[in-house]
């Protein structure tokens, strides 16, 4: 047998792959997450002073996880035998949800966990990732690869802190958006006008922003601390809606960045898929020559969207300072831009998909923090790895070759 034959084994289709994944999850739940009978997991659903308090949710661990494992096995077998294309995402999503639920029950057996608080943290942590993914998506839809999201987020965070300290919160946010947009403009100039390799341009902007912000923060902020002391946007409770149990605190009593991210996802979806300009933008990304023939200004469209992407990333960056701690630290974005990039690919270049992926990463982030308090036997590092491993499994096993916009990475030159 030739070596190459190994990679050409009879292809198992994607629905069978998802079936296998679900069966593995079922086995994991059954054997590793088994809870002794008689121990109960307590989930707190509301805080003491909520308008409509809910009772704590108390689950009996043993039966719950046995049932969870059975359900997983059932949908796994079903997927393996006859799952249709449409069912893959649904079954997998449902399967992951059940697995996470079983895991939570196992981890909180005989203890209690504030579920609402964790979901709230999930949404908060998903914000910069979702905005980063949105920034990547806006520019990749017009065929400009955006590796520079990380740098743009960092620039936004820095500007938020500096301008926020000088002109107050709103001034900081608007400046962050403008500076983010300027880096978008720099990226656009480099790759569209100077036809520089798009990946190089992105890497370089990341390097440049990291250098600039670290330099200024160690050269200037260390001496003038008042320049790095911005006000923080507080949570705004939306009347009535914020009193709904669970959903209220999770979605309707957050700060302006969370609302902004959710609204931007909605607007971007509408813009890209339901408006004439959105269609034009996508045409430029898929087949610029055809778009040009039809009278769309390819260069201008690309400039506009890359600048827009930068502005969105600048807004997302401001979250790090104005939306959370109020001060800038060197390299404080910590790779969130790259995770945003992954979320964008994971979400298949669709705003809602990107938001969902961002929520998954955000959930894992907040889960890890909570579990450190619960003292589970699994080392926290492995829990921290889980979302990344899950991403690899899903990207490799199910999504496979995600199709980017057709003309991605190619500069356009009018003939």
């Amino acid at each position: 047998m030739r070596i190459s034959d190994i990679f050409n084994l009879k292809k198992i289709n994607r629905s069978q792959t998802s079936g296998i994944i679900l069966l593995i999850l079922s086995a994991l739940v059954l054997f590793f997450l088994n809870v002794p009978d008689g121990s109960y997991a307590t989930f707190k659903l509301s805080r003491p002073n909520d308008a409509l308090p809910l009772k704590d949710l108390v689950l009996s661990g043993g039966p719950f996880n046995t049932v969870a494992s059975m359900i997983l096995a059932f949908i796994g077998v079903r997927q393996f035998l006859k799952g249709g294309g449409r069912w893959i995402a649904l079954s997998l999503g449902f399967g992951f949800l059940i697995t996470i639920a079983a895991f939570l029950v196992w981890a909180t057996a005989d203890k209690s966990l504030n579920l609402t608080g964790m979901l709230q943290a999930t949404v908060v942590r998903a914000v910069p990732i979702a905005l980063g993914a949105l920034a990547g998506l806006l520019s990749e839809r017009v065929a400009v690869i955006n590796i520079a999201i990380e740098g743009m987020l960092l620039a936004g965070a820095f500007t938020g802190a500096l301008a926020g300290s000088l002109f107050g919160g709103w001034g900081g946010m608007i400046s962050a958006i403008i500076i983010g947009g300027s880096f978008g403009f720099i990226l656009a100039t480099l790759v569209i006008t100077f036809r520089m390799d798009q990946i190089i341009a992105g890497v370089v902007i990341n390097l440049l922003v990291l250098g600039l912000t670290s330099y200024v923060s160690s050269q200037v902020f260390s001496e003038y601390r008042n320049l790095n002391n911005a006000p923080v946007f507080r949570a705004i409770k939306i009347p009535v809606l914020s009193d709904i149990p669970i959903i209220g605190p999770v979605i309707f009593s957050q700060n302006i960045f969370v609302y902004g991210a959710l609204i931007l996802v909605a607007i971007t979806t509408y813009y890209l898929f339901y408006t004439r300009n959105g269609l034009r933008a996508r045409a430029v990304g898929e087949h610029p020559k055809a778009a040009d023939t039809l009278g769309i200004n390819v260069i201008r469209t690309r400039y506009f969207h890359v600048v827009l992407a930068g502005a969105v990333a600048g807004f997302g960056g401001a979250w790090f300072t104005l939306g959370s701690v109020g001060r800038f630290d060197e390299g404080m974005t910590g790779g969130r831009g790259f995770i945003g990039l992954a979320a964008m690919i994971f979400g298949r270049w669709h705003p809602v998909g990107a938001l969902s992926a961002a929520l998954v990463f955000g959930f894992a982030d907040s889960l890890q923090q909570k579990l450190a308090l619960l003292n589970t036997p699994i080392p926290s590092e492995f829990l921290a790895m889980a979302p990344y491993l899950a991403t690899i499994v899903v990207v490799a096993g199910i999504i496979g070759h995600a199709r980017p916009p057709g003309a991605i990475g190619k500069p356009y030159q009018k003939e």
Partner: protein
Amino acid sequence: MNTKSNFRKTTADLLMLRQGAYRDAIVLPIIAIATALLIGALIMTATGVDIYTIGRSFAALGHGAFGSINAISETFTAAIPLILAGLGIGLGFRAGLFNIGAEGQIIIGGLLAVIFSFTFSDLPTIVLVTFTLIVGSLAGAAYAGIAGVLRAVTGAHEVILTIMLNLISYRILDYALRQPFIQKDGRSDPISKSVPGNGQLPKLLDWIDPNLRLHVGIFIMVGAVILLWWLIKKSKMGFAIRTNGENSHAALYAGMNPKMVIIGSMALAGGLAGLAGAVQISGVLERASPGFSAGIGFDAIAVALLGRSHPIGILFAGILFGGLEAGGRQMQIDAGVSIDLISIIQALVVVFIAAPLIIRTITPWAFSKNKRTS
């Protein structure tokens, strides 16, 4: 044909450049570096640094990079891992793969190297050091191989895979450094046991001054440059890699196996990054600690880009980055200017070299109007 153009032709031939690329290879980098330094000076002025200090910091930068035997030793010590990892990333570019994962591969390679080294500390030096490096590069190759195999078999995007593998590697390192058989005895902070004395890469210049850190890794690095140059330019595999990078359909119809090319070049890239990690551990750091990779994997991307994925180009780019690194430390000590300025200068150099149109626009007099290739 006059002597001057003859000289150019010979130089260009030596550097294996396409004809007419002389300006791109020699003139362009010099103007790019000068422009980057000038902008660096402007940035310093903007943050309230006076002219005298700026002059002193540039003097310190030059002196710290190439001004003394110690400076040269430091420059090359910093350049070795950058070049090793950069060669791997460059190879990936040639194959049409964007490997962001060098950082993770360095971590895994370095981590396994240090574990191997203190576990088998009673082996004789030459055996121990050789096997430490082999273990490190195999570990890096295997780790990158995960991404390569998944990319080849399932078509998953290598950027997302390597980003995830980077993030996973940080956690693996954090976890490993807390394990009793790895953690240094009597320490509560996460730090590994040290590489034993006979497991360290021999220092090259300690007969001049025991503080000179340059180690025999430099020969490994030069060997890797030559090997990669041969591999890319002369070997059958290199041809397959380049063809695949230029046009994977053509490669497929020419009977090359794109899947094997992807797996092979990814594993080789990971091997080089893992080797970089192992060399860094056994030549400089002597132990693993959180963040010991210090962003080398990301700087190496810039080095590979700057060297245009050409082994000789990567060699020079790595030396330049190493020099800026070493000089930057001197600059911080002498003039009190933060070393972060160096990343700005590095980024600007890459911009100007990667987008030669900018430099041509700023300094048209340095380039004659006739033929240009790039």
